């Protein structure tokens, strides 16, 4: 027992003798005792499915300081889901987020309709797609982002497989030291084995039916499958609904 600990014990014992056992309370601090903070997905069933593991009544969602992969084909809703996570991130005062957009197809109008604060969203369009991971690493190391979304960084397969693997492993280490929720959005055909390995959470999203109103498509329903969850249950399937009519709404809002 270190001398510092002995002195602390002596202080605690003396005060408890003088003022009662509840006068001074001591607790150790460890990561395991604190629930993983997370950002709501805005889909209440999904949040609930992701909250179960904490067991402390904390609201669930995409974990901060971890990597989440969302896999789904086009029009599955994965990009909308990511946008809703950014909305949750922006609820904190002065919180910042970033969107890695190597394909240069990010739609600010739609993000705004989802509720994203564009003034607090950095959109990154690297000239070389292969720079995306490195840029993300630097941004995350700045400790200033609440969330960062990679939108389709593996599409072209540029860069050697070894370089990408190394970069992802380093990214996972760096992310764990921050409070940044990192989301990778991928099509089923562009998944990366290392990403699947380092991700804390993997979600598969798919659309099932259109929501038709006055003959126009006003949204769609689908489901999300929790493929992997290091913090709780995997294999859960939850329904989701996305509607758009001026603003974009997820169920639960």
């Amino acid at each position: 027992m270190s001398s510092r600990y002995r002195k602390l014990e002596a202080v605690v014992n003396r005060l408890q003798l003088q003022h009662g056992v509840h006068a001074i309370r001591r607790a150790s601090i460890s990561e395991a005792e604190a629930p993983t903070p997370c950002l709501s997905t805005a889909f209440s069933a999904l949040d609930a499915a992701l909250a179960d593991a904490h067991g402390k009544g904390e609201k669930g969602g995409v974990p901060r300081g971890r990597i989440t992969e969302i896999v789904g084909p086009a029009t599955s809703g994965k990009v909308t889901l990511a946008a809703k996570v950014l909305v949750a991130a922006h609820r904190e005062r002065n919180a910042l987020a970033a969107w890695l957009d190597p394909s240069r197809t990010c739609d600010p109008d739609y993000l705004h309709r989802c509720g994203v604060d564009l003034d607090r969203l950095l959109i990154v369009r690297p000239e070389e797609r292969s720079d995306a991971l490195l840029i993300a690493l630097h941004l995350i190391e700045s400790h200033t982002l609440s969330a960062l979304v990679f939108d389709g960084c593996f599409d072209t397969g540029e860069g050697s497989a070894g370089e990408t693997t190394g970069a992802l492993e380093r990214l996972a280490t760096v992310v764990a030291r921050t409070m940044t929720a990192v989301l990778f959005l991928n099509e089923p055909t562009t998944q990366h084995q290392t990403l699947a390995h380092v991700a804390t959470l993997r979600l598969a999203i798919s659309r099932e039916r259109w929501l038709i109103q006055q003959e126009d498509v006003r949204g769609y329903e689908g489901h999300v499958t929790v493929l992997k969850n290091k913090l709780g249950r995997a294999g859960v399937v939850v329904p989701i609904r996305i509607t758009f009519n001026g603003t974009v709404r997820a169920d639960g809002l």
Partner: protein
Amino acid sequence: MANHQVAYLWVPHFGAVVARQAGHGLGRRPLVLFDEQGRVLAVDPEALRAGVAEGMTEHQATARCPQAVFQAASRYPIWEAQTAFLGQVRRFTDRWQPAGLGNAYLDMDGTGMGNGLLSWCQSLAGEVRRLGWEPALGATGSKFGASVIGQVAGENTALLLVPQAQRSFLATQPVTFLPLDPDALTQLRYLGIRTLGQFARLPAAGVLTRFGTAGRTAQHWAQGLDDRPVVPPWEALEVSAQVEFETPLTDRERLLAALMRSAERLLTPLSERFQAVGRITLTVTRADRRIIPAGYTFSQPTAALGPVRLGLEAALARVAWEGQPAASVTLTFGGISDAPVRQLTLLDPAAPFGEETDVIADSRLQLPSSPSGVQGLKATLDRLAARFGSETFRIASLTDPDNLLPERRASWRSFDG
């Protein structure tokens, strides 16, 4: 006051810890980090044990710990880490106040004593630990009490003390916890005063006579009577004074001297309350009636005349004089907060290290009290833009949300546009 609860959260040796985490082959030797003015900004435990303290010159630090590694703090992401640290703090409460690098006070009123409070403290400290640091947390009925308890707790420990037990707890703690200057601590040592309890029992009149108003304030704290509120950065006070010249001044030295006299008058009551200023704002009215603002931000709050003088010089250098003399100047000290909590040092108080000239650093570095959008990322983005091109980093604005063509609804600018 009996129900008032304050937490003090800190990461010991924060600057040195961040530097070591950044790697770069620092090895196992003691570590001392310097600011841009060549003053000690942060030390690790080994250097602290050797007697190196914040504010020392390189010469003084080298004399005490010649085997240390001496590095420029600017090489490491200390300010980014401070941003992350405070980011965690403000997730738990809107009532928070920075107390130095890796230090903060939190107002816990409303959480209540009992299991809820302990869990709250554990969660807060756990989040900081998740960032790779080892925090300590102390909580009781006052800022001073909480800071002492937090420092006694040690890494990875939270200590919660009922407010009514504060005085008992403080009584046996070293008097060096008080933010008194080295001369005062030396005098106490010669008087045989070693503990806060002994200091608390000294006659009040004698303390006032010998140590002034600051000493009397410190004595109140030692008695568990510290009613300072937790003041968030956006509520920080300002104090101002205006200096008018019968004949407009062109002589910069005389102008500086006049400002220093005003500065001393403004700083004295702050020093007596162990408060410090975060920034200087000058509003200069030139002889041609044009009003020119200029300012300077300190990297750490200070009330010492040395760094304040340097700050005034820097601010005056930024004024667009255009050959015009100054008819009047309004001096404003803003960002008033508590002086940074200093870690205990084993420094022999009989050998004080001289006048404290605190850190004056690049005024671009801002604590995240009110970052506006992506400006909080600016330092990182400047660096990345130099490497990857500024057009890589964009911000979109919906400048024409009703445009019938979707691609024309938003306009783009680079992050520094």
